């Protein structure tokens, strides 16, 4: 059978009354510079991991704002911490720290959820 699932894509609607802001709030608490991201994509253009895969840093920011923790926890693994994104960001956002915080918080959430 041909895979025709793309004809019926999963809903991309975000329910803002019901979204998971645990990651976002954590990041903003420790790296408030993320507030000023304008999604320009400069980071994505220079990204070393993005050069090797379809990894997209700007999307990380987007998913973070939408509370898409599931997707993030997979995707974030691809970053190599090289720091190029931080150097090119026109808003001086400490992206490397944003990534570190996301990874840390996801690990914390996993620990909370797993029965001790």
């Amino acid at each position, binding site marked *: 059978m041909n895979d025709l699932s793309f004809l019926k894509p999963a809903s991309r609607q975000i329910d803002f009354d019901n979204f998971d802001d645990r990651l976002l709030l954590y990041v903003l608490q*420790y790296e408030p*510079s993320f507030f000023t991201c304008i999604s320009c994509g400069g980071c994505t253009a*220079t990204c*070393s991991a993005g*050069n*090797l*895969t379809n990894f997209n840093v700007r999307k990380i920011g987007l998913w973070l704002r939408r509370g898409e923790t599931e997707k993030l926890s997979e995707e974030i*693994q*691809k*970053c*190599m*911490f*090289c*720091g*190029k994104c931080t*150097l*090119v960001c026109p808003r*001086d956002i*400490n992206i*490397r*720290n944003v990534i*570190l915080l996301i*990874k*840390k918080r*996801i*690990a914390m959430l996993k*620990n909370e959820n797993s029965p001790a």
Partner: protein
Amino acid sequence: MEKLIILPFSIGFIYLLGILGFRFVKWISGLSRLDKLRLIHSLKTRRFFDSLQEVFMEGLLHRKIFLKNPVLGYMHMSLAFGWFLLIVVGHFEVMVSRQSLIAPIYLPVFFRYFETGHSFPLAGIFSFLMDLLLLFVLSGVALAMLKRFKKQLFGMKKTTRLKTGDRIALLSLWMIFPLRLLAEGMSAGLYGNGSFLTSTLGHIFGNLNSETANLSLWTAYSCSLGFFFAALPNSRYMHIPTEILLIFVRNAGVKLKKRNNTYTNIQVFSCSRCGLCLDNCQLSAAGINNTQSVYILKNIRNHNLSDEQLFNCLLCGKCEVDCPVGINTIDLRITQRIESTRQYNSSYEYLEDGPAPKADTVYFAGCMTHLTPGIIASMKKLFQLAGENVWFMDEEKAPCCGRPLMLAGQYEAASKLIANNTRKIIGSGAKRLVVSCPICYKVFKEDYELANVEVVFHAEYILNLIRQQIITLKKGADRIIYHDPCELGRGMGMFEPPREVLRATGKVISIKNEKQMAHCCGGSLGNLKISQPERSLLRNQAVEDYLQYRPDVLATACPMCKKTFSRHPGLKVQDISETVVQALQSKVQPKAVIKKAKSNVLEAELI
């Protein structure tokens, strides 16, 4: 009844010995088996005497502090060495007076109280010596008090903050010797067993001298000793005994191996909180004043180290150079980062092994160099002139070298990138790997196992081209300041090759803050928390210093430093490769045409 005065002293002393014994046994048994063997072995070799000598030079004389700051050095020396001599000479005095080699421990401490006779041989000389030594120690105590209140007099910008345990220990330490002076003075007045210092004091006391006052002074002295001993294990003064252990363990070759073990504790407890690591730490220029090594060590000890502090450090290594105790502050901090991020190392399953083109030389530019295309262009030009058969490994795509991950503590993740790069480099059959970034250089040199491939930093590579006259340079009149990158200078100990290269192009001026004392540019990948505006403050501080010397060019050998400094408007910044290419005599003919076409094809396959 009279003997009761020794009680506070004895209780404190026994308690201290118990705790010390317990901790030392715990720490040594916590070392790995191999490290224990190392330690035992080192006791049987010459290293044992080296360690003893170091204990004497650093633990008692405080030579390194002396060299950095003579007044501070004198303060530490008079307290430590003076007290040590008081104990030693005191014991001799007791042995002579009792005509016996064994005497109770407490006797030399309270000798002038118990020995009222003063009629044994050499008594006069001994009491003179003891008075002299007491004066020596007292001068140190006076300086210590002065330092607490007027630290500027010591040329120190900052001094560390105190906790309750430290306060008790500090106050009792300050009290011990003045009380001893008063007590011995009074005894000298009563029994005439003093010398120039104590007798004079006895005379001054005059009618105040009485048995009761004498007893109370001696009791107070005993109490201050007891308090000090009891407070010592929970105060920073724990560094005194621990430093001795540290010297032996370190000289045995014990190191932290990416995990905390009791060597962490030994180092943490050896920190005297002298605060010398604060003086040159640039973070304070950005108002960051709670993340320096002394605080991290304290937080590890108190189990309250936060990520915000741990990751807010440039890993520039200045504090390691400054630390008189020789604590490996960088290793220690990276180990804490490893522990803190152990749970979320990535596996990078997407990495693929592509075919590696055959070449004599591999060039790895690194992520940072890709942000400074001038360096890449210069390197290509130089390879071309040298007729090098070179494979530009990460021209199109390649994983990062792994060092930035390591700086963030993610060693496991870094090892995945390392394995992938290693296979490619070895697969190319190259004899050497040239890198133009110190961050890459450090990891390739220290953590890659590249068999016969020699890792060469571009400064060495270029220097070789100059020496072999493969390129000839025109020496200009430019005044050049060379900025030592942290990872290359303090990190890898390479100071001269870049300077020599630059000397072929202009006049390299030497400045105060260079080599081991060089500034960090502020761009460091080691710091994950500092903001860009804060980084600019650090950079400006360095630039201001450099501008005093009116350089025409600020040269460096790191793409990161170059990028950071270039953001400053008032300065011409170049990487040494760019300076060299600029100074090339134009007539040189390329020896061979670079075998680029072939590698292009293969790289196309990689994509």
